[in-house]
């Protein structure tokens, strides 16, 4: 068991290192292949006044004329030890962990992300709980009553959920549920610590919209998995023991059905934690996704880089958590780990 944890941890760290390297390459190496000069690159970091002096200063400051490996080393050092950028007499400090510095807004990237994290995390976890519970519930009922009216309606609904993008369902929800019929209040973020009730109230519609998209997938997965498991020999054994159908489904069939779902859930949650771009944009929630969108529109490279790394970090961590909980769910993993 310990070796399993150690190996997974090692693999997770390795993956993070690789992700950092690849992300760095995308932002610092690939543009050069596309023919960008050092000056052009520097312009993107310069801020609001790209005078030749300012550009040269930026090159010096960021070491853009240095070899790529040196730059990467500086970047990694920044993450662990923090970085300093000299701008004439001014010294800009970027405290560790330094995920970059936005020269357009004169802000460190990391604190900005951390400030927006509660919004995104609230959105992700709330929606995650809803889509996980809802999807599995619908999937199980559909599988048990396969071919019933409920099953067919649920699967049609699920198909709609998978196919409709957030900017469609979200805007529709806003138009009708909020503005036309007034069933929901205007979505917004109130910190949980401040007022839990208003926190939930403000996020309810974003949660439902985001959950609708994912729950559909989970319902279909659960239904298919459950149907397969119900055909297994050990389910027949369970029935032959004299167990009630409820116990057969909820104890013997549900657990093997959920095993693969946990894996997908980890990935999906990680993805959403790195910024639910569309949902945040549609409902004007000031989370990490929205931060990324504004950075993209302003070509603020350090911010994009920082957010990308942060997102990758979440996916890796969620995956690690899944890998570590897996042996608890499926005992066979322990042996083969």
């Amino acid at each position: 068991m310990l070796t399993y944890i150690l190996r997974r941890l090692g693999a997770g760290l390795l993956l993070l290192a690789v992700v950092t390297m690849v992300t760095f390459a995308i932002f610092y190496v690939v543009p050069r292949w596309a023919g960008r000069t050092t000056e052009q690159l520097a312009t993107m970091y310069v801020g609001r006044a790209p005078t030749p002096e300012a550009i040269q200063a930026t090159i010096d400051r960021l070491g853009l004329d240095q070899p790529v490996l040196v730059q990467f080393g500086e970047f990694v050092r920044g993450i662990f030890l923090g970085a300093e950028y000299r701008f004439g007499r001014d010294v800009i400090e970027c405290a560790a962990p330094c995920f970059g510095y936005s020269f357009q807004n004169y802000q460190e990237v990391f604190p900005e992300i951390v400030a927006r994290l509660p919004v995104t995390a609230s959105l992700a976890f709330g929606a995650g709980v809803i889509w996980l519970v809802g999807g599995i519930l619908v999937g199980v009922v559909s599988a048990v009553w396969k071919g019933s009216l409920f099953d067919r309606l649920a699967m049609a609904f699920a198909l709609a959920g998978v196919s409709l993008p957030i900017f469609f369902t979200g805007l529709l929800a806003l138009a009708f549920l909020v503005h036309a019929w007034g069933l929901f209040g205007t979505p917004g973020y109130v910190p949980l610590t401040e007022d839990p009730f208003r926190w939930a109230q403000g996020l309810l519609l974003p949660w439902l919209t985001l959950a609708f998209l994912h729950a559909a997938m989970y319902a279909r997965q659960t239904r298919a998995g459950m149907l397969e498991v119900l055909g297994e020999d050990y389910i027949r054994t369970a029935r032959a023991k004299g167990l009630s159908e409820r116990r057969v489904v909820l104890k013997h069939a549900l657990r093997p059905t959920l095993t693969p779902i946990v894996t997908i859930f980890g990935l999906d949650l990680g993805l959403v934690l790195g910024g639910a771009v569309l949902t945040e944009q549609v409902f004007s929630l000031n989370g990490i996704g929205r931060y990324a969108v504004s950075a993209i529109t302003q070509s603020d490279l350090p911010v994009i880089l920082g957010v990308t790394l942060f997102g990758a970090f979440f996916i890796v961590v969620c995956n690690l958590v899944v890998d570590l909980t897996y042996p608890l769910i499926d005992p066979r993993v322990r042996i083969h780990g």
Partner: protein
Amino acid sequence: MSESVPSSASPVVRVEDLRVVFPTMDGDVHAVNGLSFEVPAGGALGIVGESGSGKSVTSLALMGLHRGSRARITGSIEVAGQDVVSASDRKLRRMRGNDIAMVFQDPMQSLHPQFTVGNQLVEALRVHRPEVSRSEARARAVRSLERVGIPHPQKRINSYPHEFSGGMRQRVVIAMGLMCDPKVLLADEPTTALDVTVQAQVLDLLDELRTDLGMGLILVSHDLAVVAGSVDEVVVMRHGVAVERGDVRTVLAEPEHPYTRALLAAVPRVDLSRAQRRARDRAERAQRTRQEQRRSTGATAAGEAGAKEPDRAFAPFTPEPKEERGEPLLRVEDVAQRFGVRGGVWGRTTDFWAVKGVSFDLFRGETLGIVGESGSGKSTLSRMVMRLLEPTRGRVEFEGRDITHMSERELRPLRRDMQMVFQNPYSSLNPRVTVGDAIGTALRVQGERDGRKVRRQVQELLERVGLEPDHYNRFPHAFSGGQRQRIAIARALILKPKLIICDEPVSALDVSTQDQVLRLLSELQDDFGLTYIFVAHDLAVVRQVSDRVAVMRAGEVVEMGDSDSVYEEPSSDYTRQLLNAAPVLDPEHARELRAERVRRRARAS
């Protein structure tokens, strides 16, 4: 029938005029059609039949497990005085596991992989006796595991099913069945997925439990030899009907129904030698062709029919005496295969030797049987001979050429001379490729361009293996298991190979189909002078087809020699053990063998 409390005299299971009908798109399928039998308390009944005979449908019906499916059940099934057909779901559940417990075919699949065996055993008891405390139930589970011969039950109760071997898992399933002291144990093909020695152990256990606990036993199997030593009465089923029913000794000794007789004749027998079997097959074949000839000369012009079959087919093929055999077709010298098994902290690999150095020569026209239990390395060995695997050590020579380390490119021209027939005819044929293409592809791969020529050759071959030429355009799903294996044989034959390796070619087939396929293989050997390596776990089958036999265990050949001498006078203890475990048809002999096994085990422990 009277509503009396079941006494020891009244039967524990009574089935009367049972009919199970499955409505399908093509009309009703009568899976069971008017079946009746009884099992007295503490008695044992065998239900024997081939696939599709309705025996498994019957056993599911006994448990009421057709509930929820579309099956229509009529007639009456009484288990411990309770009618299963009309019982409410709740009553039915109370009966399952409590009055009648079931043991299934595949122990690898029939236990829940995510719960400990203790958990599953405790659940089996507490669902019927909720008043029993958890700790008490656990104590019972330990006793039950001990009863079925699981070593260290106190510790093993916390293990998961995947930590047990196949035979041990089947013991766990049986232990689970015993938790509520059922009046009857229903075992549906309980040993089909197990090795011979393990099969003998499980059957011995069932027999012992029946006598010790006074439990009724219903043993369902496709193999008459499996039930012979374990039951008092036997029902032979075919197409949903009992064609014969009676005392097991009478049925086996003086079968009345022609189907029973045919089934008995098809059961491979360990005591039948290769020579006897060949003589019998050839005599039957000669008679068959004579009849055909007579019929065709009567119908069409004479003379034409005489030239139809090559005379060679009738000439008994006698392998030349050893001295004149010349160079062996295949020479295998000390081959070994190592696999790396991953484990440890950093995924270090440890070595596992699947085959630890095997040598043999194989001469033209000869059949070498390789027999062994699962994990003995017999399949690995055959794959090395085919060069599907590169031996880690040793040397393989085919027609005097060293092929041990040949590249795939160099091997290609040799591939047409060595072909393989696999175990599972259901998964070894691509379901989306027509039979004709499946067989003809090999010709095309080897460079034949003329489509009509390919077609003609394939059709000729289809006829030769006992299929119709117009099966050419059909897909594999339209064929039964036996027919599929014929297709697989045709596919192996199309390139006129010199060596065919058959890896468990009949173990997935019913006994009568098995017999037909074995007969075909032997006819083809006569006609084409083929050389076979025949890999199987079934001792009887191997004996009947092999000139020489190699017995393998844990990657080594423990005994090799002329098949008759290996079977008549085995020199190794392991071979004796295997032979002792092989099921036999004679109930008396089966009981003697069982007694000997029990003695041997008592001595060992």
